């Protein structure tokens, strides 16, 4: 990249490269793509730091982790990570991730994507992956709208909230994502906001270590569209709103935690249980049915 005078401008992190002075997440990022495209005060970058620190804490081998995103501002996450990562098509992050997880059962596959990608166009994949207890961790960045395409109303837009396709306010019932995940069969369900970044990070490290379908919703500011259309101020104003309106209640019944427009947000870890995964069930079941004829697929014969 160069400026009008032909001087070369570095678009890398301008951090001295000595061992001591390195951003602790630097090795996890594709620094050559920075600065990232997300707007000033957008919360997606904060969720990404939550993922990286959660992965660091989990102690998982980076070679055995893959990240898949769909399309949207949130869907850009995969492309900034220095891990095996894939930016799939809109709504199809979960099926792509399912393929990876089944093709190579040693991998921990993580989906990081937006509310529209996961709960609208990808909603069917979401409920079926949860139903099957597929070994995936799904992190949904919920900014209450389709941000990338101009702030349209989506499946999590609260009633009353203004969106470009709801100029007088939204009159649809939104999804309550933790309830959807739990009732579809997820073994780990949590909701946080990007303000609660340490909890996001701990929750992600916990979810990464659990075999089966784990789901973490992170509410994050979209100052450019959702907040602007609703005159809610900057991302910092929304962080202050989360501070005032988020209530931590790990024992909350997920049926009761819908999110109303600028109303209280119940956060916490709502579900944490163990249950055999899709592959475990398949193997045990077929072993029982086929006896000696059963050959277990481990992914190794794939290379």
């Amino acid at each position, binding site marked *: 990249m160069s400026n009008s005078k032909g001087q070369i401008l570095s678009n890398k992190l301008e951090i001295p490269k000595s061992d001591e002075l390195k951003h602790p997440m630097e090795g996890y990022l594709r620094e050559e793509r*920075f*600065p990232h495209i*997300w707007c000033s005060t957008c919360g997606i970058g*904060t969720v990404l730091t939550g993922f990286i620190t959660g992965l660091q804490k989990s102690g998982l081998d980076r070679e055995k982790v893959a990240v898949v995103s769909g399309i949207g501002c949130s869907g850009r996450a995969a492309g900034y990570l220095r891990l095996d990562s894939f930016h799939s098509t809109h709504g199809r992050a979960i099926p792509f991730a399912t393929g990876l997880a089944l093709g190579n059962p040693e991998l921990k596959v993580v989906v990081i994507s937006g509310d529209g990608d996961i709960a609208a166009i990808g909603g069917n994949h979401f409920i079926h992956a949860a139903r099957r207890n597929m070994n995936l961790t799904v992190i949904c960045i919920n900014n209450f709208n389709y941000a990338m395409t101009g702030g349209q109303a989506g499946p999590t837009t609260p009633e009353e909230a203004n969106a470009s396709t709801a100029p007088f306010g939204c009159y649809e019932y939104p999804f309550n994502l933790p309830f959807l995940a739990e009732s579809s069969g997820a073994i780990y369900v949590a909701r946080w906001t990007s*303000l609660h970044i340490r909890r996001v*990070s701990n929750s992600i490290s916990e979810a990464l270590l659990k075999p089966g379908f784990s789901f973490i919703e992170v509410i994050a500011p979209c100052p450019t569209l959702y907040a602007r259309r609703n005159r809610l101020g900057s991302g910092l104003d929304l962080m202050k709103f989360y501070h005032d309106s988020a209530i931590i209640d790990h024992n909350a019944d997920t049926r009761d935690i819908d999110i109303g427009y600028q109303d209280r947000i119940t956060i916490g870890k709502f579900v944490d249980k163990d249950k055999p995964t899709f592959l475990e069930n398949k193997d045990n079941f077929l072993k029982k049915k086929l006896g000696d004829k059963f050959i277990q697929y481990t992914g190794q014969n794939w290379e």
Partner: protein
Amino acid sequence: MAYWRVPLDIKKVEVPHGNVHIDKEQCKGCKFCVEYCPRDVLEMSAEFNRKGYHYPVVLKQGACVNCNLCEMICPDFSIFVMEGKPRNPEADEIIDRKDNQ
């Protein structure tokens, strides 16, 4: 730390200490780090960076306790903290206390 009363064992106590590093050109001026630093170590610059954003500057390097919150909450990966030698809080803290009054 601004003490209400100076603890008797203050000469023996050591608190963790961090050194803050800021990549001012990558910062997008969201102010999250300034707002949520528990020790008010940072403030926003009066100057603009190349993209026209104000960026954080260190107001009181000695007061940073290496909690890493600024690093984790920053959406732009433009601030980080390295562990420094633990410090005896006495010297600068008591001065801070006077400053705060």
